[in-house]
């Protein structure tokens, strides 16, 4: 059993030799903070994407010709509504609106607000959407990126679109998409399908794609099969496909990041190993004194294990706290840009705190175990050697 003196001695070793431990603690904490930040960000993004996609239709059907998307025939809507298992098939129009002052694009999405399933999906994101009020005039719901641009250029409550017929269409800002959906809705402008057609210069018969809802999730595959055989010149995009698309995109970026991280972790561990292998005289002397005064090899290992475990766990906790502050309070500058990029509108997504215990355990295992190994192997090698040379 450990006596109080042992605990006191351990604390003294840590405190009195703090200069020796400081840099290891500092670099370790930094590495844990980087890894944790990356995992916190990817976890938050995944949560946001899942939330946003939960309001998406089960399938999106687009017409293709020679590998290019073209307008989908309106009569397909009735045809798909006839398929058993399809709850609703709703026409959608969308297109890009070029916003000259910032040289960026908004994505205008026109939806049929009288379609129940579309409305239901939208209400997953907007709890209290009053459709009658929304349709009482030309309104739109906009993403946070669009709102920021409007604020910057001082559009107060409305924006004048310029349809291709050179007219001016004033559309009022009804609401903004929730921050949690920003990953996907950042540059989005949602409005009534007729208004969207007008602004995009599409005729009443033109639809960009058709959104399909399936009542029973177990019938998704069956319905997809029926859709596939109905026409050969179309593409069916499932909610799962979109989810995978985002997952692949973020995983790819995350993978590059993780590779760089592992490289830096290995470099650090090699330096640490080198430090203990080409043992600094004071370390060897410490171990020799302990051996000389009756410590067994295992006692030396336990003492060093305890000493370095405290350093490793402190680094881990410090790193995780730093990452939490960096991601959830400062909103992960730099890393956010690596994940989200600046393709169109700047995404000012706010990461919602998402703490996954398995993720914390993963960070612990990735960091603490290699750390302990690279420190303890050289210590063990010194401890088994004869203390004689050091004692001279």
């Amino acid at each position: 059993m450990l006596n109080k003196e042992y605990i006191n001695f351990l604390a003294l070793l840590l405190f009195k030799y703090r200069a020796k431990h400081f840099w290891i603690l500092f670099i370790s904490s930094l590495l844990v903070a980087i890894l944790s930040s990356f995992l916190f960000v990817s976890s938050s993004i995944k949560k946001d994407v899942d939330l946003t996609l939960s309001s998406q239709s089960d399938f999106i059907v687009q017409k293709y010709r020679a590998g290019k998307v073209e307008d989908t025939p309106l009569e397909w809507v009735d045809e798909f509504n006839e398929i058993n298992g399809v709850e609703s098939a709703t026409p959608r129009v969308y297109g890009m609106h070029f916003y000259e002052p910032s040289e960026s694009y908004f994505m205008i999405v026109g939806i049929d607000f009288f379609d129940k399933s579309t409305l239901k999906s939208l209400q997953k994101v907007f709890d209290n959407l009053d459709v009658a009020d929304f349709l009482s005039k030309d309104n739109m719901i906009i993403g946070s990126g669009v709102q920021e641009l409007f604020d910057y250029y001082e559009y107060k409550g409305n924006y004048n679109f310029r349809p291709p017929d050179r007219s001016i269409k004033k559309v009022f800002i009804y609401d903004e998409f929730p921050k949690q959906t920003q990953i996907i809705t950042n540059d989005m402008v949602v409005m009534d399908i007729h208004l969207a057609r007008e602004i995009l210069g599409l005729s009443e018969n033109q639809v960009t794609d058709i959104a399909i809802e399936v009542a029973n999730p177990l019938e998704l595959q069956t319905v997809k099969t029926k859709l596939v055989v109905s026409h050969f010149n179309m593409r069916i995009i499932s909610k799962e496909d979109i989810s995978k698309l985002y997952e692949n995109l973020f995983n790819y970026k995350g993978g590059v990041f993780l590779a760089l991280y592992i490289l830096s972790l290995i470099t650090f561990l090699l330096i640490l190993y080198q430090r203990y292998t080409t043992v600094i005289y004071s370390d060897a002397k410490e171990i020799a004194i302990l051996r000389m005064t009756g410590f067994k090899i295992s006692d030396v290992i336990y003492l060093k294990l305890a000493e370095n475990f405290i350093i490793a766990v402190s680094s881990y906790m410090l790193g995780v706290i730093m990452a939490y502050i960096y991601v959830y309070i400062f909103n992960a500058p730099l890393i956010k840009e690596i994940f989200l990029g600046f393709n169109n509108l700047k995404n000012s997504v706010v990461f919602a705190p998402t703490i996954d215990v398995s993720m914390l355990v993963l960070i612990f295992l990735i960091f603490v175990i290699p750390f302990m190994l690279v420190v303890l192997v050289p210590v063990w090698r010194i401890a088994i050697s004869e203390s004689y040379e050091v004692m001279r």
Partner: protein
Amino acid sequence: MIKLQNVCKNFGKTTVLDDISLEIVQGTCSVLSGVSGSGKSTLLSILGAIMKPSSGLVEVDGLNIVSLNDFYLSKYRGDSIGFVTQAFHLFDELDVRDNVVVPLLLSDFSQKEIQQKVDTAMGIASIEHKAQSKVTTLSGGEKQRCMIARALVNNPKIILCDEPTANLDKENSLKFIQIIKELKESGKTIMIATHDPLISELEWIDNIINITEGKIE
């Protein structure tokens, strides 16, 4: 009783100790003398079980320490041996008291017993007044006495001193000699490797063992 029989120690092709046989009676003080590199420190290291001989037998109170595994060797070092070395092997950033307590860290003694033992050892070594002083602030003589206190804290039977006065001035050397004399009188077996005439010419030394090129003359 310490008994060495045909002890040899080789480092590669170099023979440092060559067929050493001797017996040391308990409670005596022996001086190992010889020039630098003659093998004095190697012999002490073997006796202290921080080095294994290449061949031969080392018996302490009938126990052959050469054949012991790490568990029993460590126990032997912790219980029976106290080291005082030429270089001051101490935890420099800790104070005297925390250095002296090191051999008791793994013991089952109560806090009170540990404190008593530490106080006693520091008292014998005349370093109790510096108990709270950091090692780096001590003089050479004080560091030496700190090592003596640490060597005594477990009340070992054998004290091994390797060139203990090499880094001390005459005044501190005399203080050291006085402490060693008192330890001898208390029944400790003491072995001192030195070529300091101050020690080897003391009249109360029981044995002077001359080692030349690894052999006892």
